[in-house]
């Protein structure tokens, strides 16, 4: 059946917007209400010259990343003429979350071993804070190869920082690729595939930091798998086979923090946890493993959370499929400039959209 879905949103300045849509997209239309002079969604209308106010995309005929656009000409009084054109960059991209491919390889020139790690690339990396990157082919530090990490800071076009404690490793050349986009759902439908532990405190309560921004929640029960080289074997499953389990009592998912607190675990007298560094290769990595769910009725990204009714059955925690198909609206300067353009600009605007699934498409 022909299906039309509509919606509206307010963008974050200079930030691409992902709209999850389960339907097949045959046509997508988008209007910038604010720049058209319309007051909506709490944003005052402001008819503005040289801004994209309408964008259209048909994935059957058009390339991802582009859009057919209408852009305001010079405003005269309460009217602006419309100019037709194409946005060649930062237009629309139809996303199938499960088939995202790693980004292009960027050569790593070096990294600075430390409690957090600053990486330097040979060419501009293009990463954003919140992206997940994976480092490989680290010839002098192979023990770190294959790790996925969230970018916690971007120092320059050729430097970025992650929470990896590389103090025991040697700097190295290598390769880095973006494997997770901060503006998109992750490829893995339930949890990031490689949820390696970055650090564990010897404290009461115990605090665990992860290399990637995670989505555990208060009440979740986890267990640990820590290779012997990393220490803190007290968290591992003992010979009895009964796992050491811990309940998450607090979470900070903010990029750059990425911590889980376990109020019921006192790790003060445990052996220290640390990345072993040079010479420990090949080996497994230390992981947090989702083990069970507290009865808090938590569903990620579902409001309100926890749900207001107690004890209903939900499929949360490791059973909540976080993946989504949809469409990504690119960001730039809000014009169709071939070098700096993008549909979403540096202003905070209200938008209205319409997605169409056609019963029949000709030809």
């Amino acid at each position: 059946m022909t299906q039309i879905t509509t919606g509206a949103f307010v963008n974050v300045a200079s930030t691409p917007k992902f709209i999850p849509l389960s339907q097949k997209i045959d046509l997508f239309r988008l209007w910038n209400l604010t720049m058209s002079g319309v007051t909506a969604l709490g944003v005052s209308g402001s008819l503005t010259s040289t801004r994209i106010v309408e964008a259209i995309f048909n994935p059957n005929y058009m390339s991802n990343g582009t859009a057919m656009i209408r852009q305001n000409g010079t405003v005269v009084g309460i009217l602006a003429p419309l100019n037709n054109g194409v946005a060649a960059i930062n237009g629309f991209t139809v996303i199938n979350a499960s088939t995202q491919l790693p980004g292009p390889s960027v050569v790593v020139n070096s990294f600075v071993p430390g409690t957090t790690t600053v990486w330097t690339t040979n060419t501009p990396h293009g990463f954003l804070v919140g992206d997940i990157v994976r480092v490989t082919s680290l010839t002098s530090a192979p023990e770190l190869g294959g790790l996925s990490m969230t970018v916690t800071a971007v120092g320059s076009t050729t430097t970025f920082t992650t929470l990896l404690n590389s103090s025991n490793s040697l700097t190295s050349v290598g390769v880095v690729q973006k494997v997770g986009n901060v503006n998109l759902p992750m490829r893995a439908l339930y949890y990031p595939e490689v949820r390696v532990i970055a650090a564990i405190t010897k404290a009461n309560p115990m605090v665990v930091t992860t290399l990637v921004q995670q989505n555990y929640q208060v009440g979740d029960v986890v267990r640990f798998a820590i290779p012997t080289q990393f220490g803190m074997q007290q968290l591992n499953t003992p010979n009895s086979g009964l796992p050491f389990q811990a309940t998450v009592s607090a979470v900070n998912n903010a990029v750059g923090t990425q911590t889980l607190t376990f109020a019921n675990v006192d790790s003060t007298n445990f052996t220290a946890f640390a990345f072993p560094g040079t010479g420990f290769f090949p080996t497994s990595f230390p992981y947090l493993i989702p083990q069970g769910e507290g009865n808090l009725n938590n569903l990620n990204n579902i409001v309100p959370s926890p749900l207001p009714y107690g004890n209903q059955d939900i499929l949360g925690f490791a059973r909540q499929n976080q993946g989504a198909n949809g469409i990504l609206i690119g960001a730039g300067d809000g014009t169709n400039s071939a070098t700096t353009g993008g549909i979403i600009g540096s202003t905070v605007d209200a938008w209205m959209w319409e997605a169409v699934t056609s019963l029949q498409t000709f030809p």
Partner: protein
Amino acid sequence: MLINEDPVLNSAVSTLGQSLRETEDQLARSMMEGGAPPINCTSGTNGDNPTNITPLDCSKAVRLLRTANAQFIMDLIEGELRFGTAPVRTCFFGLTHTNLSADLDQMVGFQNVSQYSNTANLLQSEWGTVRNIRFLLSSVGSISALASALGQDVYNIFLPGQESYDMVDLDGYSAQFIYAPPEIASPRLRLYQTAGWKMAQVFNITNTSWIVNLRCTLAVAL
């Protein structure tokens, strides 16, 4: 436009059935990717991390499962008086990608299904066995692209024990094939019919101690 209903519908049923089951497989696979505890193969010789798979890595994974009291899936196949065959141990299934078939063939001690002492009740996707694992290969098996230390594809081999995962479905929604004849799909001129499937189900690891994701890379290049 005239539509010849029956052949079109027969073809659609076949295609939709394949689509449904492959979708279920992929959802189960994705659930295991997100939740099964990963361990790397480390005994191979290809210089990567994880390494290529070896019998010792299989033994270590089975040891982990057995220490956690995971139960085997398949019973012992007893030896019989057939040349070139051998008995098969009690086993976990190893669910992985068809690209691993050559590496499995290269493993010392690997026993192809043709060498089982009794080949009754084999699954079509079964490739063979080593130690206490019987491998089922699928083209939709799990691969983590370019994820090894050397930037090669990592193959995830899921080893579920009994009751380690299940499927939760809403009443009446496990899988439905829905056919709408022209009288319903296009009542005005009755030109079109539609067929499709839907389901509302979720795969769920019930005990992460009873399932392992054994990660490896290839020694035999594609």
